[in-house]
């Protein structure tokens, strides 16, 4: 009883539990279909690249994982969400491809400008977007969701404008590498791993994490304690923009084209879902980066599982919605209070019996 309680109150209980649940569903499905029961976990080398459902989940989940890093910081510091990340992804991908191909050109096999210019510009514009969002939230005191609403609409539109409303293809090997494979290993996994490692190291060796949490718990009190609250919130939004930029470049490189209408579509919802699934309160304050990352991959696992079960990509949102509602209802105050009352009632009943 005590052990069970300890387990359910562990910080990472929710994300790990849901991850295991998804894996269990996969195993059951495989057994039902007559496949070997552990085919979800088997990794083979086919056509000289790593192959397997687990690799696929890790690979496809890279963008959401990268976004989840920035989103965790934003949620924690400002108690709001950055809903512009999907559009910013599309914008940064669009700018990068536009620079690499030249304006108005839709299909190139040679760079119009060096690769690093495109990549840097893509990331820089994403940071500027983050700066804009952060300025509105931190210095103008606008609700985060509303402030990011502007770029949610404008980001994709500007991206379309840069690409002249067309899909710009950049068919050059060195550009494709970020979305494909280095040797046998998928590059997006590497990029996500590097981003996660950097974030983890920063949190471990600097006091940034503590600052962010304290601002999220009480902005005024933190300012009185000597933190520059506004600056910290601004920084969180810039980090979120940076993450969106990196994710956008990975997504663009994956299809070696700037499909501005579709890159990062609804990605902000996945990122927010990842943070919620990671056991983080969407009301700000304490956060766990590990939870968000596990949450991100869990979402990808859910999506991949749904596809494996034969659900079409248009229908998948129904299940995602049910998952979101279940998670937030479990986390909500009245339901928590109800369960607490229930367990308290049981304990007093027990105590009464002992006496």
């Amino acid at each position, binding site marked *: 009883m005590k052990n069970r309680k300890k387990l359910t109150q562990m910080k990472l209980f929710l994300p790990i539990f849901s991850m295991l649940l998804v894996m269990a569903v996969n195993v059951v499905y495989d057994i039902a279909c007559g496949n070997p029961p552990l085919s979800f976990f088997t990794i083979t080398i086919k056509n000289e690249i790593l192959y397997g459902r687990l690799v696929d989940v890790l690979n496809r989940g890279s963008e959401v994982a990268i976004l989840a890093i920035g989103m965790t910081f934003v949620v924690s510091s400002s108690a709001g969400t950055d809903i512009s990340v999907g559009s910013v992804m599309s914008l940064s991908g669009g700018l990068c491809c536009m620079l690499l191909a030249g304006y108005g050109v839709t299909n190139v096999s040679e760079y119009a400008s060096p690769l690093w210019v495109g990549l840097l510009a893509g990331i820089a514009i994403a940071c500027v977007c983050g700066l804009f969002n952060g300025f509105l939230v931190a210095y103008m005191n606008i609700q985060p969701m509303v402030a990011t609403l502007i770029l949610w*609409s*404008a980001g994709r539109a500007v991206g*379309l*404008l840069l690409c002249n409303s067309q899909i710009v293809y950049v068919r050059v090997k060195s550009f494709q590498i970020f979305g494909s494979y280095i040797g046998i290993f998928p590059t997006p996994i590497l990029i996500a791993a590097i981003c996660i490692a950097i974030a983890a190291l920063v949190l471990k060796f600097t006091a940034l994490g503590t600052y962010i949490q304290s601002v999220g718990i009480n902005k005024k009190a933190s300012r009185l304690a000597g933190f520059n609250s506004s600056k910290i919130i601004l920084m969180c939004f810039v980090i979120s923009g940076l993450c969106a930029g990196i994710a956008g470049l990975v997504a663009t490189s994956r299809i070696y084209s700037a499909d501005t209408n579709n890159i990062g579509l609804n990605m902000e919802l996945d990122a927010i879902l990842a943070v919620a699934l990671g056991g983080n309160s969407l009301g700000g304050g304490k956060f766990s980066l590990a939870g968000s990352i596990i949450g991100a991959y869990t979402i990808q696992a859910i999506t991949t599982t749904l596809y494996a079960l034969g659900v079409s990509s248009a*229908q998948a949102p*129904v*299940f995602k919605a049910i998952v*979101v509602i279940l998670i937030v*209802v479990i986390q909500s105050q009245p339901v928590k209070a109800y369960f607490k009352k229930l367990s308290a009632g049981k304990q007093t009943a027990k105590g009464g019996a002992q006496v």
Partner: protein
Amino acid sequence: MKKLKISNSNLLLLITIVLFAVMYLGGCIVYADKGFTHLQTFLNILINNAGLLCVACGMTCVMLTGGIDISVGSLIAMDCMIMAVGIEEWGMKSQVLILLVLLIGLVFGLVQGICVAYLGIQPFITTMAGMFFARGMTAVINTQQVSIVSDAFFVKLSNTKIKLPFGSYVNSKGIEQIPYIRVTVIVALLVVAVTWFVLKYVRFGRSLYAVGGNQMSAELMGLNVKRTKLGAYIVSALLTSIGGICYCLNTMSGTVNQAVGLEMDAISSAVIGGTLLTGGVGNVIGSLFGVLINGTISTLVKSHGKLISSWSNIVTAILLCFFIILQAVFAKMKERKKS
């Protein structure tokens, strides 16, 4: 103190109306040769945005309580799909389907409202889940585009032109053009009028303002805050369903990707119309002008002919940004005056 608040919100409304007038007159001057000066251009804005107008009214109610409802676009897609599939595949009467759609809207709003008001889940997260759900459900019902052709009543309703007794002109071919509106416009304007009346004179409408202005004092005053919030979400979903029927009458089809981003248009219309995102301030007349401004922008972009359609998104976003910052500045001024 109270006087200042009213004057601020009135100022926002005034700016909106002036902006609309300037934009429309500018359009009349620049695109005079493309028929911008005809009454029909203005009526077309109303016809094209009748659905959005209903949605914006519901959105205003929710935003008055300090919440937000981003599920509206998907809900409209689901409504249209139910209408289309219901008529074409299930062989149901359109009158029955309209009632069904309204009922679905009621239940949808009820569930969202319970999650927000009684379980304390953030409105954005709740309605985001609703958005996912409705869009996914649309695909579950049917993934193809379904056009409505076989229901006589619905087709007739969609094709009815209500001619206006004034404003007729003779076009270049020498044929007299009589300006007209559609049934949807009348429905939308009725919705605006009723919502305006409810917000101004009915107990429920007044409590929306009170809850949005200061939840704590509303509660101390004896208002049932939770029930009011629940009511706001039900009203929003119900008006969205009415808007969905108007939208369906306009497009006469149902597809999965219908009304994508409509929630953004509705929110920006309300914000441009002077509804504060923090709740407590705003009215439907402002939202009406917000919708008209949105419509004018897209008409202007279309009239130019060479611009990419994403320009209208960009201009709307810039306007939205301008009004949000304006609101923030007003809020700051108010705070300074207080202290």
